[in-house]
């Protein structure tokens, strides 16, 4: 499905603030893989996701998705194959636009936008049903501006938008980090459900070790722009936070230092 080969990325090369964010990453995902990505601050997790999404180009290496070469494709074209949810609930939705308009925008992802209506009545009925599955009451507020929604509601809406067109790959960039624990749990459960229902291939960056273990069929850990651990199948199922920390110490020769990652 996703093939990342020999990818490198350096920010501000040749300056004092030079930062080698990704230093040679190879990663192959099988269809239906749900990979959780974990690592300390500055390990390159988000950068890796942004490289796949096309926020910035890779310095070296290739990225292909289901046989489509994404390496030099601009961000808005890649969007046809990708679903994305961001860390900040404000990023995934537009405060001044209405709820159903968001779904209309998402349903036209990857299509040519012309002079036809931006949203039509038949669609609204479909969106009503889809919003109902979220169980947040959003289906009765479809023409309200998204700015009136809470962070959790906005993330749920973004998830719905991201999965609407059955993306070839779902990219979740710490999408529960800005939410309170209870809401985060709800959004994670919803994520799991949407991924299972459509059998999506997904990558989920998280700071929470327990979540990284609980969800998905594969776990990768990053440090200094490289993948230092890759655990899948049976081994992943029997993983605990203790084992993970031990493995981290073995491979990297240091202890896992990020406080945020140790939480829960």
């Amino acid at each position: 499905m996703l093939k990342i080969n020999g990818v490198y990325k350096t920010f501000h090369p040749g300056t004092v603030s030079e930062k080698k964010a990704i230093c040679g990453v190879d990663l192959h995902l099988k269809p239906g893989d749900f990979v959780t990505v974990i690592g300390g601050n500055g390990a390159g997790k988000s950068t890796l996701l942004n490289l796949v999404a096309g926020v910035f180009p890779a310095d070296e290496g290739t990225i292909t998705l289901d046989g489509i070469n994404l390496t030099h494709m601009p961000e808005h074209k890649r969007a046809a194959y990708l679903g994305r949810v961001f860390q900040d609930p404000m990023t995934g939705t537009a405060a001044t636009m209405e709820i159903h308009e968001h779904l209309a925008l998402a349903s036209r992802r990857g299509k040519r936008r012309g002079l036809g209506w931006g949203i039509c009545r038949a669609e609204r009925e479909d969106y009503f049903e889809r919003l109902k599955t979220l169980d947040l009451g959003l289906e009765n507020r479809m023409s309200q501006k998204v700015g009136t929604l809470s962070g959790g509601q906005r993330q749920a809406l973004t998830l719905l938008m991201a999965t609407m067109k059955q993306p070839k790959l779902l990219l979740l960039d710490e999408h529960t980090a800005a939410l309170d624990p209870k809401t985060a749990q709800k959004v994670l459960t919803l994520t799991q459900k949407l991924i299972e229902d459509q059998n999506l291939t997904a990558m989920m960056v998280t700071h929470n070790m327990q979540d990284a273990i609980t969800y998905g069929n594969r776990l990768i850990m990053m440090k200094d722009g490289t993948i230092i651990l890759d655990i899948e199948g049976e081994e992943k199922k029997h993983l605990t936070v203790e084992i993970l920390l031990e493995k981290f110490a073995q491979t990297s020769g240091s202890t896992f230092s990020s406080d945020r990652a140790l939480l829960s």
Partner: protein
Amino acid sequence: MLNFINALPGAVVQGLIWSIMALGIYITFKILDIADLTVDSSFCTGGAVCIVMMNMGYSVPLSMLLALLAGMAAGFLTGILHSYMGIPMILSGILTQLILWSINLVNIMGGAANLALKNSRKVFRLVNLAKNDFSLLVLLGLTAAVIGVLYYFFGTEIGCAIRATGSNDKMSRAQGINTHFTRILGLAISNGLVALSGSLWAQYRGAIDISDGKGAIVIGLAAVIIGQTFFSKISRNFAVQLFSVLLGSIIYFIIYTAAVNWGLNMGYLKMLAAVIMVVMLSFPVIAKKFHFKKKVKGDTTNA
């Protein structure tokens, strides 16, 4: 006072003409959330192109269409400078404004600082209020048509994409919208309307001056903000918003006419535009503070 009343229809006509420019500014300022300074020159471009075309013997609609297209080209240039060449928005607008000033003067107006509409062909009598009673109706029809087209356009897929770009750039790209394209298109439409307004202004005045349109952005913003201040509470409906811009523009020109009739030194007119804007922008902030203080006071007496 009588003078002022006599001048009112003229103020309304001016308000209508400039409201088309204000609608252009509404697109960049409110929908795309950017400040575009191209308008200070594209207004004159529209007027100059229209007059040159009409003096060459072309029909009024064709002359106005070309003025519109010339304005769109100016907006297109600003958009390219900003999106594909990475020049900050304000600077892109100023650069196009300067480029256009030279083009207006040298290439369109042939080196003359002002250009008169040859009186032999009085084709656009319609806007000449003194001589034709239909002028107001025609202008009303034209502005209503512009509002109608904008209302339809921003409800289409591409129009929604432009609105999304102005509201959230990152989200728009994640939803497959080419934000460079939508921003360029928005700027082109905006400046096309500004130039169209310039072409009407030139016909109304019977001439265009190279300095026409200087400070247009302030007038346009004032119209947008006056409209918002008075009418945003009525409805959030997009059509109401567009009409509020039109009404804002008319109110602005009525205030302006009143000030002139009151005997304000003409040299202060630009300052007046700025003062109106300061009042309109600060009014909600000050009102809120005042309201808040009153409320706090009330609370203490209750306790």
